[in-house]
């Protein structure tokens, strides 16, 4: 029995179904509803998190903004490995992600991307690595998981819908889905240290864009400002945008 207890306390890969995973370091996601469902009430540090999205544009990147903003403001680095599009500096900065702690790596994909990912995960201590692997085998995922453990990094992998069927050593697997009226919902497919729960709706993420009534108001505000492009930015952010503000504490 004592051997079992020793194993349980020494290896984070082993846990009891009902037990809260206390050994896991986390960083709050910035979304109260999501935090409440996650073991440790935040993104696991030193472990892989998979975000499975059927289509881009569901807020899968912005979901991470509060945590990424916090990371960069702590002086730690955010590393994007092969981002699928161009990161828009003004938008990132607008959500509190400091550009002087952002690194973009372009590998051309394939094995090189996974190698770069592993290097990024192993380097230094703390910070976050985001990657968009096309295909990734279980053993490769396992290597990334070990690399993430070694440096206590936040490691986010954005994966296509068919990844749901594959098994994965990731500590946390979330599936994002969209509903036209209610915004984006998040299902926890797997979380180390507790049992998956019912889908969580994160309306505050997208309410600004998803709520029809708010939309018409916003529309009215904008039309008044069509000429002044420079100011349009400010009026927009006041009325519509900022669904996820980095400093917002719920």
């Amino acid at each position, binding site marked *: 029995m004592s051997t079992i207890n020793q194993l349980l306390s020494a290896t984070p890969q082993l846990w009891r179904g009902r037990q809260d995973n206390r050994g896991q370091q986390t960083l709050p996601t910035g979304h109260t509803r999501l935090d409440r469902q996650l073991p440790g009430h935040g993104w696991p540090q030193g472990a892989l998190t998979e975000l499975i999205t059927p289509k881009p*544009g569901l807020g899968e990147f912005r979901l991470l903004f509060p945590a990424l903003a916090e990371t960069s403001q702590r002086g730690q680095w955010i*590393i994007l490995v092969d981002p699928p*599009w161009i*990161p828009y*500096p003004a938008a990132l900065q607008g959500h509190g992600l400091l550009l002087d702690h952002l*690194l973009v790596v372009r590998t051309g994909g394939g094995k090189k991307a996974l190698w*770069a990912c592993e290097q990024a995960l192993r380097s230094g201590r703390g910070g976050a690595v985001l990657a968009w692997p096309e295909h990734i085998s279980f053993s490769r995922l396992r290597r990334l998981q070990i690399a993430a453990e070694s440096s206590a990094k936040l490691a986010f992998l954005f994966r296509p819908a068919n990844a749901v069927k594959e098994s994965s050593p990731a500590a946390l697997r979330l599936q994002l889905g969209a509903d036209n009226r209610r915004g984006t919902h998040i299902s926890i497919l797997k979380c180390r240290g507790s049992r998956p729960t019912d889908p969580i709706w994160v309306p505050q993420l997208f309410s600004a864009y998803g709520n029809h009534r708010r939309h018409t108001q*916003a529309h009215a505000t904008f*039309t008044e400002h069509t000429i002044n*492009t420079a100011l349009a930015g400010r009026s927009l952010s006041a009325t519509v945008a900022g669904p996820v503000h980095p400093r917002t504490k719920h």
Partner: protein
Amino acid sequence: MPEQDSAAGQQALPRLAAWCYQYSSQVCIPGARNGLFLETGASKRLFGSTEQLGKRLQQELGQLGYHALTGSAPTPEAAWLAAPEGLHIATQADVRRQLGPLPLDRMHFDTAQRASMERMGFRQLRDLLRLPRKSLTRRFGPALPDYLERTLGIRPDPRAMYHPPQAFSSRLELQAEIHNCQGLLFPLKRLLEEFCGVLRGGDNAVQALQIIFGHEDHPDTPLNLGLQSPTQDAGRLLGLLRERLERLRLPQAVREIQLEAATLLKFNAGQHSLFRDTPAEQQQDIRQLAERLQARLGNEAVSGLTGVEDHRPEYSWRPRTLDERPECTPLSHRPPWLLPNPKPCVIEHFEILAGPERIESGWWDGHDCRRDYFIVRDHHGSTLWAFREYKPRRGWYLHGIFA
């Protein structure tokens, strides 16, 4: 500390002197002798007793491919005699006692002198030391008593000190030709360890170096290695070279390897905290990561981002090097992703959520445009950024993703 390695050893002495500089700030290359003098009294607390230091030097030089003998004494000449015997003489009084029994053929006298000593019945060093100076001068001239007095420390023995150079160059001829790049790692490791010893000795670091692979009958293959920050760490350099060698095509087998560093920089070792999580350490780690990635993927592969003052989104950003400071006006209502090229779309397929936001700019640089931007949603529930363009082409385009 004599070096038992004939002509090649003699050639290596200046380099080894630079290497030894990490153990003593006073290194001397005695002319025409196959060895070096190090003043170690001042570094005793750092490196322990002279025996310990001697063993360490022998071992580390052995790893670099040199066979070394070490000994120590209060005077350079006495140390020179002590080294082949492996003696470590602590005080001046001990010199006479410990070196006295040394047979005279171990001394470095010329043959004529040796022969006359033999005839006079001198067998050991102590036989010479017993004689008064006057008598020695009469028999052997003034040079011998001078030498003995310098050995015993009666007469001062000032020496010209070695000063490490501000550049480094070393050549290694391979014993057998090496055909594949991976095979080069072993000799390179040896060169780099020697080089980094020299760097540590002069409290220097390197940020750029060149490695030249020499072939039998083909022009040399040069390999330039640049780093994000100065280093004196052989492991880091070797790691980078390993990546570079994987990509290197050798036209022919390698006969010799040359390492050149034209400029050495002053090393600035930061304090290390236990968890490596201070901003300075994070900075250092990210630079080393960038270096490793660039070594394999090319310099273009790693960059930061900065904003550019321009209202047109496609011109409002560019990559930056890690030395540049980013500047950017924050716009939180813009999408986090921009498409590299705006994609024509049919607006009827989308639901407009917000907009328009007018962007009109660029009349001065020939990329004049007038657009109204909208936040839209498609039937999958994806939120996108679209614009209606009036100038130069009319139509609807997708330009960003609210991922």
